[in-house]
């Protein structure tokens, strides 16, 4: 292994102890080694920047914020005592931007990125500009994103959420020009007068929360969820006030508008109607199910937003579009009834939400997008499937963000994961299967980088089937546990990989025994040179009957490595690896009561 390889392995975090010692010695004795490490560190940074893809458009240096208003303190720091210090660091931030934008005059910060979904991409690349990240400051200027959602905090205090694809010009912290897409603005007290302009329509806030959507047909939609806005066309003296819970569509060519009904009407509307007037309204309190006016219709919609405290049942067909469940701090739910069918290209969950299939079909990730459910910290999703189909057409990551949790229950029906299915990415995840079938075409990953509790898949009944693989505890994972209880489950997988020592296979053995895990190809308990990996945990169910004397735990074609740890609870036995028969067995089983 060359020094270059050793240095790279060190940066990868995969260096062995001898490699580490070699790198340490080279750094000490040979200044060129230090240069090589420095160059590799820089290269990784440059590659990440290059691929972050999320670049800020260089913004024609537009005139800086036209309107500067006295600022309220909602995003000022609470630490008045460290003001001088923060000012310095603040200046550092501002100056730093200058170093990477050598030809751009210092632009005033109009907004900062408060949150961005990981799939947000600036539409055009400008390699000299910084990657998009939480905390990035944006000067005035045009912004385009082609997917994902982006939350901006304007320096006026306005909270602006953008759903891609969208194109808009951040003219100042009080004025935004919307060319395409969907903006949702929460305007706090003190920032009244905030303007969104779309196709010559000026929407002036009068202290409110509202949305403006600019669909491809060029007719802007305005919906007010709180307070009121005043609308007028440019160069026209006619003004119209739109009050709370109202929605209007405007036609710039005729300069007319049509009301689209109040929010409660809208929730009672058939979704087919919503399809013609995206986006769906943000209903605050209604719990009315959507009427099943025309069950046989299949319609398309751009956006189905199920906002705070709204529960909707769907019993007819819907296709395409974006599903957003809930808002931070609130709860909401979507049930799909036996005749319902919903296909969403992009799904996002916030707040404490529930997605319930009692039949029908839900297809996630119809396009190239990954479905990252539960991104925002504090989000919780109950995903319950009693019957029907859940099909995932693309990579699904549950509990994608930190401090998020997903409880999934499969009681019946079929989950067909056609692409990788991750439970969970950074947050906590549990899956309890009491029936139905979970079919893995590609990989089912059980792991979490930041969960405090183990990620668990418990199977009491039903089927977990391949042809794909189950991977436990990839990376620096929390404990990842597959628990098989009794003999009701059927588990047949393509491969089973325990990717780190945090992977655990748990068998709860009762008087009838326990179902074996059958692996069509390979069971891999070996990783990066280690021949032992993970834990085999064997427990006896708490009843008095006799246990079988011998059990097959795993069936396989090939086996790599063995379990590093075997733990017994309430029984004793001998774990036998029989490669000839392709079995891992537990033999000489005896119940053992606590001494």
């Amino acid at each position, binding site marked *: 292994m060359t020094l*270059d*390889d050793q240095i*790279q392995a060190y*940066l*990868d975090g995969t260096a062995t102890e001898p490699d*580490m010692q070699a790198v*340490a010695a080279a*750094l*000490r004795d040979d*200044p060129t080694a*230090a*240069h090589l490490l*420095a160059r590799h*560190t820089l290269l*990784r*940074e*440059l*590659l*990440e*920047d*290059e*691929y972050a893809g999320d670049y800020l458009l260089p913004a024609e240096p537009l005139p800086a*914020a036209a309107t500067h208003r*006295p*600022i309220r303190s909602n*995003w*000022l*720091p*609470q630490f008045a005592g460290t003001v001088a*210090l*923060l*000012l*310095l*660091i*603040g*200046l*550092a*931030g*501002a*100056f*730093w*931007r200058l*170093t990477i934008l050598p030809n751009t005059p210092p632009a*005033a910060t109009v907004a*900062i990125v408060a949150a961005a979904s*990981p799939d947000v991409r600036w539409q055009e690349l400008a*390699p000299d500009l910084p*990657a998009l*990240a*939480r*905390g*990035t*400051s944006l000067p005035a200027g045009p912004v385009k994103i082609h997917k994902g959602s982006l939350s901006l905090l304007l*320096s006026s205090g306005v909270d602006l959420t953008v759903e891609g694809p969208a194109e808009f010009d951040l003219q100042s912290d009080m004025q935004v020009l919307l060319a395409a897409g969907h903006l949702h603005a929460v305007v706090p007290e003190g920032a009244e007068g905030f303007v969104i302009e779309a196709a010559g329509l000026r929407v002036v806030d009068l202290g409110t929360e509202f949305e403006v959507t600019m669909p491809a047909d060029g007719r802007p939609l305005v919906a007010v969820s709180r307070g009121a806005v005043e609308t007028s066309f440019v160069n026209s003296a006619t003004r119209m006030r739109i009050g709370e819970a109202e929605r209007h569509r405007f036609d710039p060519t005729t300069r007319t508008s049509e009301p689209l009904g109040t929010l409660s009407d809208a929730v009672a509307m058939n979704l087919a109607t919503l399809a013609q007037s995206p986006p769906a309204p943000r209903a605050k309190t209604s719990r009315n199910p959507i009427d099943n006016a025309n069950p046989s219709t299949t319609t398309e919609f751009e956006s189905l937003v199920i906002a705070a405290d709204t529960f909707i049942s769907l019993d007819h067909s819907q296709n395409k579009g974006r599903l957003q469940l809930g808002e931070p701090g609130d709860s909401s739910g979507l049930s799909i009834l036996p005749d319902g069918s919903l296909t969403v290209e992009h799904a996002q969950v916030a707040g404490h939400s529930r997605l319930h299939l009692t039949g029908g079909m839900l297809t996630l990730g119809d396009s190239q997008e990954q479905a990252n459910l539960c991104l925002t910290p504090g989000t919780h999703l109950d995903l319950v499937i009693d019957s029907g189909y859940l099909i995932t057409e693309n990579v699904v990551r549950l509990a994608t963000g*930190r401090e998020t949790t997903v409880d999934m229950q499969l009681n019946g029906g079929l989950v067909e994961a056609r692409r990788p299915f991750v439970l969970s990415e950074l947050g906590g995840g549990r899956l309890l299967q009491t029936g139905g079938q979970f079919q893995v075409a590609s*990989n089912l990953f059980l792991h979490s980088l930041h969960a405090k509790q183990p990620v668990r898949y418990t199977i009491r009944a039903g089927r977990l089937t391949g042809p794909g693989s189950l*991977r436990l505890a*990839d*990376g620096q994972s929390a404990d990842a546990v597959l628990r098989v209880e009794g003999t009701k489950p059927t588990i047949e997988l393509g491969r089973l990989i325990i990717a780190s020592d945090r992977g655990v296979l748990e068998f709860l053995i009762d008087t009838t025994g326990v179902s074996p895990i059958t692996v069509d190809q390979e069971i891999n308990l070996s990783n*990066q040179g280690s021949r032992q990996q993970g834990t085999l945990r064997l427990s006896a169910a708490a009843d008095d009957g006799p246990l079988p004397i011998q059990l097959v735990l795993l069936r396989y074609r090939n086996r790599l490595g063995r379990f590093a740890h075997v733990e017994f609870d309430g029984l004793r036995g001998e774990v036998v690896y029989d490669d000839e028969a392709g079995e891992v067995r537990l033999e000489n089983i005896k119940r053992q009561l606590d001494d």
Partner: protein
Amino acid sequence: MSQVPANRSHMPKESGASGKHSVVADSFPVRPLPAGTRAMPAPDHLRLMRECTAAWTEAQQPVRRFIRSLVRDHQHVEDLTQEVAVTVVDKFAEYDRSRSFTAWALGIARNKVMNYWSKQGRDRHRFDPVALDNLMAAHEELHRSAEDRREALTGCLGKLDAADRSLLDQHYGESMSAATLADFLGITTNAIYIRLHRIRRNLLACIERTISRQEPTR
């Protein structure tokens, strides 16, 4: 300059969940005063702040990279960089102007990292002080050509063959870990690491060639 930033916001230090290295995670947005408002005059203090700010602006990237060479967790890298920024401001009065500011800031960073190692316990004394000195010098020097290297990288990426480019696209663009990639491609994780090592080695060589061609004209 009559407009002086007056308000600032403390940003959470958290970088995105994507785990991508955030280059601006510790920059603070600055808002100008309302037009027509004058800043409070405090000339000496202000002059000092400006001096410190300008110097830190120059130093923070090599400082972050130096820390990154020594600490794997991105979040810890950001936290440590932030700690260095705070110390730089605190101790700016003690900074000896005959020395390079970046070297001074790197010295602070070195202490922060050693402190961090001893708190972490396991990485204690991973590299000895001479090694850290060498690494500080290397990052200070490298920073001078960092922007040229960024430019060179774009050209060098264009010269990669399709398979290598696609691997980088998946690894960096789609944030797929080596283990995930191994699974997708049906080869071992180790083989993925080896391929990535080779690609990066070639990119470095290409960048060096590009830079050395540029030098005579400068």
